[in-house]
C-alpha cells in the first residue's frame, strides 16, 4: 500500500515551509503526462494533518503510522517539518474529541493548520473528491470544516443566480453579478444546464456524463440549501468575475485558517478561452494572481507546457500561452515539470518528473534539483523512482 502514500523522493518538495510565504510553485504537464496526481499529492500533504486529526485517525491507522516514520527515516532534512503536523495532531486531537462538533473544530485547530482553496477549471468537484478519496482524504468533510474551499471553473454559470447570491453574501460585497458578459460564459451556462458539461471537459475525465451532471447539479442546489458556501462556481469566465469570486472565497478561508494555500488547476484554460489577442487577459490574470498571492501563504498552479503551446509561438494563442506560462515560471520559486519518457513508451514508466528552481531566487529554501521517473498505477497509486531503480 506504499504506492498510495506520498512517494518518498517527492516528499521534501511537497512540503511548503513557513519561510516560503507568498511563494509560487508551478506544476507543468503535457498531454499524456498530466499534473493531476501531483496536485493530489500536494493537496494530501497540505490537508492530511487536519484530516487525520479528526475522525479518520482511528479508521486509517496504517497510513498515518507507516508513512510518517518512513518519511523521517529516509529524509533527514524533513525532520522538523514532519514533526510539525504530528505535534499539531497531538495537541488538537483531545480538544476535538471533547468538542466533537464542526464549529469547535474550526475554532481550535483552525489557527494552526493550513486551509486550501482549490480552483479547478478543467475538472469538477466529483473528480477531485473521488481521487482524493483514494488517498484517504475526505474533501467534503474538510470543506464543511472550513479547511477547504472549492471554486468550480468548469460548470460556469450553472445556477449562477443562486450561487451568485452565495458569493455576494460570502464576500460581503454588494456588487451585482454580471450575468453573461462573455459569449463563452453564455454557452457554458446553457451547456451546463442541458447536461452536456463533458463537452468542455477534456477526454481525461473518464466518468460518465450522468455522474457529472447529478453531482454538480446536486452540489449547486444542495450546497445552497445546506449553506455549503465553501463550494462556489464562477458566474462567468470574465476576469472581473473570477477575481471577485476568488477574492471572496479566499477571504472566507483566511478568516478560518491562519495560512491559506491557493491551488489553481489549469488556469491557462481560462486564458485560452477568453483571450482577446491583445494580451490584456494575460496581464489581468497575472495581476489577479499577484493580488491573491499577497493574501495567501503559497500558490500552486498547474499549466500545460506542450510544445505547440510553448515552443512554436506563432499564433496569438501560442504567444499568449507561452508568455503567460513563462512569466509565471519567472515568478515561481519552484517549477515541477512532468513529461513523457524521452525514449518512448514503457510499460512501467509513465513519465519523467523534473524539479527545478524557478526564476524567483529570493526565497530561503534551497531546492535540490532532481529528475525522477514516475509511474501512475491503475488504482491511482504513484511510484516515483530514480532512473535505473
Amino acid at each position, binding site marked *: 500500500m506504499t504506492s498510495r502514500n506520498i512517494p518518498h523522493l517527492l516528499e521534501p518538495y511537497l512540503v511548503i515551509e513557513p519561510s516560503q510565504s507568498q511563494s509560487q510553485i508551478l506544476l*507543468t504537464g503535457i498531454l499524456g503526462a498530466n499534473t493531476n496526481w501531483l496536485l493530489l499529492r500536494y493537496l494530501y500533504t497540505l490537508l492530511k494533518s487536519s484530516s487525520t486529526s479528526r475522525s479518520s485517525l482511528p479508521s486509517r491507522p496504517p497510513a498515518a503510522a507507516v508513512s510518517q516514520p518512513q518519511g523521517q527515516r529516509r529524509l533527514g532534512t524533513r525532520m522538523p517539518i514532519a514533526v510539525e503536523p504530528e505535534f499539531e495532531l497531538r495537541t488538537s486531537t483531545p480538544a476535538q474529541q471533547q468538542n466533537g462538533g464542526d464549529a469547535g473544530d474550526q475554532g481550535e485547530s483552525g489557527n494552526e493548520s493550513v486551509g486550501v482553496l482549490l480552483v479547478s477549471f478543467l475538472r469538477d468537484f466529483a473528480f477531485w473528491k473521488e481521487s482524493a478519496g483514494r488517498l484517504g482524504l475526505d474533501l467534503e468533510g474538510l470543506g464543511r470544516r472550513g479547511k477547504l474551499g472549492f471554486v468550480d471553473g468548469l460548470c460556469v454559470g450553472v445556477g449562477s443566480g443562486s450561487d451568485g447570491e452565495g458569493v455576494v453574501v460570502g464576500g460581503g460585497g454588494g456588487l451585482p453579478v454580471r450575468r453573461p458578459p462573455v459569449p463563452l460564459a453564455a454557452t457554458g451556462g446553457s451547456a451546463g444546464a442541458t447536461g452536456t458539461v463533458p463537452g468542455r471537459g477534456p477526454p481525461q475525465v473518464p466518468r460518465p456524463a450522468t455522474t457529472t451532471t447529478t453531482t454538480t447539479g446536486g452540489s449547486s442546489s444542495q450546497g445552497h440549501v445546506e449553506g455549503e458556501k465553501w463550494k462556489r462556481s464562477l458566474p462567468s469566465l470574465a476576469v472581473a468575475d473570477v477575481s471577485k469570486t476568488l477574492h471572496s472565497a479566499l477571504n472566507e478561508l483566511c478568516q478560518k485558517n491562519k495560512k491559506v494555500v491557493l491551488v489553481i488547476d489549469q488556469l491557462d484554460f481560462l486564458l485560452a478561452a477568453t483571450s482577446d489577442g491583445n494580451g490584456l487577459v494575460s496581464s489581468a490574470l497575472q495581476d489577479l494572481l499577484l493580488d491573491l498571492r499577497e493574501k495567501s501563504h503559497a500558490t500552486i498552479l498547474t499549466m500545460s507546457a506542450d510544445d505547440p503551446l510553448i515552443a512554436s509561438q506563432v499564433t496569438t494563442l501560442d504567444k499568449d500561452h507561452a508568455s503567460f506560462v513563462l*512569466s509565471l515560471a519567472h515568478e515561481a520559486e519552484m517549477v515541477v515539470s*512532468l513529461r513523457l519518457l524521452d525514449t518512448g513508451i514503457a510499460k512501467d514508466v509513465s513519465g519523467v518528473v*523534473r524539479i527545478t528552481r524557478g526564476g524567483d531566487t*529570493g526565497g530561503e529554501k534551497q531546492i535540490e534539483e532532481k529528475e525522477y521517473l514516475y509511474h501512475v498505477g491503475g488504482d491511482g497509486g504513484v511510484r516515483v523512482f530514480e532512473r535505473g531503480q
Partner: protein
Amino acid sequence: MAPSAQTHHRSHSLLLFQKLLNLRDSASPLTLILDTLEQGAGPLLQEFINRGKLARSKILFVSFTTARKPRNVDIFIKARGKSVTALITEIASHCAPVNSQTPKDTATNSQKCLIVVDSLNPLASKEPHVLPLFFGSIINPFASLVAVYHNDVPLVLPRTVNEYEPHPLTLLSHMATAIFKVSSLYQAVETKRAQMRSLREPEWGLHEGREGVLVGLRTGHQPEGLVVEMEMRRRSGRAVAERFILSPSRGGAGAGLSLLSDHPLFAPAKDAEGGAEGEMADSTFNLGLTEKQRNDREGIVLPYFDAQTEVGGGEGGRILYDMGREDDFDEEEDEI
C-alpha cells in the same frame, strides 16, 4: 610589456564594472538586465541593491511581478494595475530632488535614488509606446534606473502596434546606457568544455528539445555564480564589452567579481594567444633582439632625417651606421 597591458585592461574593466554596479557619478542612467529562466537576474539585482544600500542611496523597488519585498529595499511600489502616468507620479514623488532648495544645495545634499524595476515585460507588452516617456520622466541626474527584461518571454503586443514598428526590446536596447546579459556559469562552463572537445554544445531548458521542459536541470555541486555580459555605451557612442563572473555573496560579504577570462577554464585560450605573440620556443635560432642590438637599432638615423638636417648638398639617402665590434664587414656587399 604584454602582461602589464593585460593587467591594465583587467583592472580597468573591473573598475568599470564596479562603477556601473555602484552607479557612481550617474555612470549609467538606464541599466537594462536581460535574463532568462536559466539564469534569473535576482543575484545581480540584489547586488545593485546591496551596493546602493551601502552608498546610502534611497532604493525604490517598482514591482510588476514580485509579491515579496526584497531585502534592503526602502520603498516597495506596486505597479500592477496602475496607469503609467500614475506610476510616474508615484515614483517621482519618492525620488524627486528637493526642489525648494537652491540648485547648489540639491547638487550637494540630495540623496541619490536607485529605482529597480523587476520586470519590464508587462509594461512593454501593454503599452510599448510609453516606454521612452516612462524612462524620460523618472530618470534624472539623481536617479538611476535598473530594469529587468525577461528575454525568453514572448511579448503579446496589442493590435494597435504597427507590425513595422521596432520591437520593444530593440527600443529598450537602444535607449539603455548599459546592458547586462546574465547567464549561468555552470552552463557556460559546460558549453566551453564541449567546445574544447569539439562536441555539440549542450542546450538547456526551452532549447533542450524535450517537450514539457521549461527549466534546465542543474545536477551535482556546481559553482555558484553567473556570467554577466556587459555592454556599456560611452557618451561618445563607443561600446565597451566585457564578460564577468559574479559570485553571489554568502552572508554579509560583498559579491565576488572577476573577469570571465580569469576563470581557469576560460584562461587557456588567452594563454595560447600570449604564447604566439612572445618568443617562439621551438625554433633552433633566436629571432629576438638583445638589449644592445635594440639600442643600436634605435641609434640609427634614418636617411629622411639626415636629409633634413644637412640642407643643400643633395647628399641625402645615406644610412649612417657606426659599425660595432660584432658586425662583420662584408666587402663584396658594400661595393655597390
